C-alpha cells in the first residue's frame, strides 16, 4: 500500500487513487481548488518518484464532472508527466470520461490532447 497514492475527495478536489500494482490510476471528482497546482503537484511528485513502478498497459482515467481553468493547466502538467513516462517506451493509456454528450468536457479533452501530443481516449457514459 505504501507504493500507492490515495487522496480522499473533498468539496473542491477529486479523489486520487494511483495503484501501480493494478495498473490503475484514477482522478475522480470536481476540481476547483484555489491552489490547483499545489494539489496536482502531489500527483506529479508521486509520478516522479514512482515512475519505475508504472508498467505498460497502465490506464490513467480522469472523471472530472467540472473543473476550473487553473485545474486544466495543472492537469496538462500532470499529463505531460504521464507522456514523459510513456516516451520511455511504456504503453500507457489516458482515458477521459464524458457524460451526457457534454461538449465542454469533449472540447477540454480535445484541447489537452492537442497540447499534449498524445492520444486521450474519450469514454462516453
Amino acid at each position, binding site marked *: 500500500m505504501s507504493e500507492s497514492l490515495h487522496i480522499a475527495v473533498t*468539496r*473542491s478536489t477529486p479523489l486520487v487513487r494511483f495503484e501501480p500494482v493494478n495498473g490503475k490510476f484514477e482522478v475522480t471528482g*470536481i476540481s*476547483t*481548488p*484555489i*491552489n*490547483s*497546482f*499545489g494539489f496536482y503537484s502531489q500527483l506529479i511528485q508521486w509520478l516522479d518518484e514512482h515512475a519505475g513502478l508504472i508498467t505498460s498497459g497502465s490506464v490513467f482515467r480522469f472523471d472530472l*464532472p*467540472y473543473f*476550473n*481553468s*487553473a485545474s*486544466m*493547466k*495543472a492537469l*496538462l*502538467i500532470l499529463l505531460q508527466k504521464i507522456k514523459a513516462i510513456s516516451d520511455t517506451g511504456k504503453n500507457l493509456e489516458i482515458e477521459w470520461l464524458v457524460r*451526457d*454528450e*457534454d*461538449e*465542454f468536457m469533449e472540447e477540454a479533452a480535445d*484541447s489537452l490532447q492537442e*497540447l499534449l501530443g498524445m492520444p486521450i481516449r474519450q469514454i462516453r457514459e
Partner: protein
Amino acid sequence: MIHYEGMLDETSGQCLMDMIMMSSVSERVKRKDTRKWCALAIELIDNAIRYNTTDHISFYWEMNESGLVMRLKNTATAKDAERLRDSVERLKAMTPEELETEFRAQMLNGEFGDKGGAGLGMIQIIRKGVRSLEVVIVRRGEDHYICETFIDAKPE
C-alpha cells in the same frame, strides 16, 4: 435564477458552483449552452474567490430560454481590478485565431500567479464565444475597487 449576497470563501464559492452546475441539468435550455455558461460562471466565481479583498460578494444568475444574464460584484485591489479590466478589453479585441494562440501560450507556460490563478479564466470565457463580457471598476478608496462583471449571452 440565483441571487446571492454574502460571504465568499472557498467553501461558499463551491456551494455556488454546485448550485450553478445543478442548473445545467435543466430541460428548459439547450444543453450545449447551459454547460458552457455554467463553466464560465465557475471561472468568474473562481476569480472572485482569488481576488476579493473583503469577504462579501453580490452574485446574480438567471438562465432561461432567452439566454443568460450574470452579474458578479466583488472588491479588489487597484492593481487586480485594472488588470482584469485591461485584460478583458485586450482579449475582446482579439480574433478567434489570436485567442487560440493566447490560450495555447497560457496553457503551455506552466506558470501560476501568486494567488493560484492560471491566467486562463477570461481567455476561456471569451474563447468560448461570450464576447458580451463587460468589466466595470469603480474606485472606492486608496487601494480598494468595486469590480463588477456582466455577461448577457444569447443561445447559439
